[in-house]
């Protein structure tokens, strides 16, 4: 059953994997997505990939957004994708934001992260991409 975006809000999980303790960026994005009509499940800081995938399944989200500043993205993001696959939930698109060098970004996209936003990306661009990814998945 296709969800009409007008009747049924899209659901997105916003989480910060790993150990960095700064989530202002993630909160700003959560707020922007809420204002665009998303139901944002905000999982907060210091989430393990296992916790993130579990939350995504329980909350039946249409999209997962990961935020990271610590530099551990090459370990944590592929792990999230791998766990989603194991749970037969690879249909849930994952996007990411944070401090991610271009070369890493290219490799992560190849691995299956659908969009990566660096510092200075406009909220409008993030929202538009999130809508496109989530609607396609829903």
């Amino acid at each position: 059953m296709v969800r009409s975006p007008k009747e049924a809000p899209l659901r997105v999980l916003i989480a910060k994997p790993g150990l960095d303790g700064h989530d202002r960026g993630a909160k700003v994005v959560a707020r922007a997505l809420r204002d665009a009509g998303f139901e944002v499940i905000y999982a907060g800081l210091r989430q393990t990939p296992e916790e993130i995938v579990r939350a995504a399944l329980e909350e039946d989200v249409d999209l997962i957004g990961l935020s990271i500043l610590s530099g551990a993205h090459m370990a944590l993001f592929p792990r999230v994708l791998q766990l989603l696959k194991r749970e037969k939930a690879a249909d849930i698109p994952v996007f990411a934001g944070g401090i991610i060098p271009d070369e890493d970004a290219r490799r992560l996209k190849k691995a299956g992260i659908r969009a990566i936003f660096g510092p200075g990306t406009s909220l409008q661009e993030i929202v538009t991409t999130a809508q496109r990814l989530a609607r396609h998945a829903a």
Partner: protein
Amino acid sequence: MTRAPRLPPAARAILGGDRRALARVISQVEDRDPAAVAVSRALYPRTGKVPVIGITGPLGVGKSSLINLLVGRLRELDLTVGIVAVDPTSPYSGGSVLGDRIRFERRSDDAGVFFRSMASRGEVGGLAAATREVCRLLEAGGFNVILLETVGSGQVDLAVRDVATTSVVVLVPHLGDEVQTLKAGLFEIADVFCVNKSDLPGADHARRDLVELAGLGSGRAGWTPRVVLTSTTQPSGIAELWEAIEAHERFLDSSGGRSAEERRRLTAEIVELARERVGRQFAERLEREPELRRLLEEVVARRVDPRTAADRLVPGPAR
């Protein structure tokens, strides 16, 4: 002998412990997706046996942290727990930020817990009915206890008493005098009062006030609300909180109040669902039927008053 009707696949999956199927059907219930109707219908006869504990109270009193510890306690007792946390939807964008998971710390491989965030989705109505359906789905998924977290004091228009078998009202010291509690309408619904953040000064005073108020009787036959002090920063009182909840659940059984309460809740649910449907039908008719559109124009032009128009829609004795 009649054969038991075949269960829809999603219902069978939920009964078999498939968490993703459970999550999907919960979404369908939230989305008012007709696909959920058959599943809910098939599972209904198997439900109504587990306690549904409503945890409500004003913003910032520590409901989420309290639930986190309560779940830990229930797991110690080897009980499985389904949690539904309802947060308000923004009336402006229709979106929401559901943040109750932040306080929730569970081993990610613990299959005995299922946490679901739910947005109130504005004034569409039917929130209590949808919440009850979600609680029943969790029960069908095999959870022994359902915890329902809601923001009290009218910010989310969910009558927790229409869903929960035991209602816990969470307060903190110095939230205001007991008149505030009375005003917020929280007093009538409490089976258990929980004074959280009891490490703060004033906790004993708050307890005394509440015990005194509880002693006045809340109109709930035979039950005097318990008052429990808890703290989540230096965890204390959590076992006592669960004991107080259990005491109320036992009271429901020994007093015969359980079936009467369930009857009252189901009545409310039927009425809510019927009201939602009838309201939608009338709204559609006012848009569609030429005669009723003319009637609406008459009301807009101030020649007919709204009550008279409603009488034309639903003939019956004027009140």
